[in-house]
């Protein structure tokens, strides 16, 4: 994974696979405290203690198509490399919360990347799931809530419409310029 937005896409996909109806993605940067926090919270089926203990193990997965699960362990590694911490909380029936922190100035901290594309991919793959994206940059907060967007759409338009998705993507474009150095380095560029 080359940037944090790809990690976020991966973890949020896990959330939808766990039957979540609502996935909240919160990014919080406090430059003065040299801290960046990413939280992905869902209301999916959650995990029991036994499964939770195994969740960070790269050789554990619930999937049947391959025998290793790398998503959480890759994010955990990204936090370790950038002076941060990784937490996961979950309860059966109450959803899961993944929290990753990073040292903003750390040379190995991955750039945030393209959150617009991450949100658009999530919405396309899961049009019935709602997403709340909150970006808090040194106290300046903005939010994108798909429930609000859906409420404005009538019967002839769905949130998966390319015009709507491009609008969402453009709104998030601004995030890339905010203190996050990004080389735009995504494969197949």
């Amino acid at each position, binding site marked *: 994974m080359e940037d944090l937005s790809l990690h976020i*896409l991966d973890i949020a996909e896990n959330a939808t696979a766990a039957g979540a109806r609502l996935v909240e993605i919160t990014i919080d940067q406090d430059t003065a405290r040299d801290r960046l926090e990413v939280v992905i919270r869902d209301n999916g089926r959650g995990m029991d203690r036994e499964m939770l203990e195994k969740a960070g193990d790269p050789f554990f997965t619930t999937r049947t198509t391959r025998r290793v699960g790398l998503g959480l362990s890759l994010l955990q590694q990204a936090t370790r490399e950038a002076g941060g911490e990784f937490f996961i909380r979950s309860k059966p029936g109450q959803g899961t919360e993944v929290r990753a922190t990073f040292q903003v100035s750390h040379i190995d901290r991955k750039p945030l990347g393209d959150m617009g594309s991450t949100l*658009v991919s999530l919405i396309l793959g899961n049009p019935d799931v709602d997403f709340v994206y909150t970006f808090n940059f040194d106290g300046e907060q903005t939010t994108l809530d798909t429930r*609000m967007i859906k409420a404005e759409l009538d019967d*002839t338009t769905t949130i998966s419409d390319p015009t709507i998705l491009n609008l*969402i993507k453009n709104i998030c474009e601004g995030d890339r310029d905010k203190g996050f150095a990004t080389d735009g380095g995504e494969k197949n560029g």
Partner: protein
Amino acid sequence: MAKLRVEDLKKIKESMKGTVTLRDGSYRVKITVHMGTCGIAAGARKIMNTFLEKLQQSGATDVILTSSGCAGLCNREPMITVEARESAPVKYINLDSEKAKKIFDEHIMKGTPVPEYALAMGSETTY
């Protein structure tokens, strides 16, 4: 981040009046981008972006673009499955933006699969 204004949505709604979208349920072709950890790390999001761009340019309303998880062939990612009604589904492997554009023009729009990028023709369907 600029805020999404209600006026923006209203404007879109206005411009879409009269166009009938078939995105709910009935469709001619379905494109599934495989987006497991492996797919994402290999560039699946870029492929999703490319198809979204092509979809908007073409104005096609009978094409569904969606995602699914890991299909078990992680070393062949980025990978997609194209399901056209009345014909066998095709899995395309090791994709990049250029290949995706060609697949869109040939297979999605003209109905002619691109065998050189395909893994195999004829496997499971999701409908």
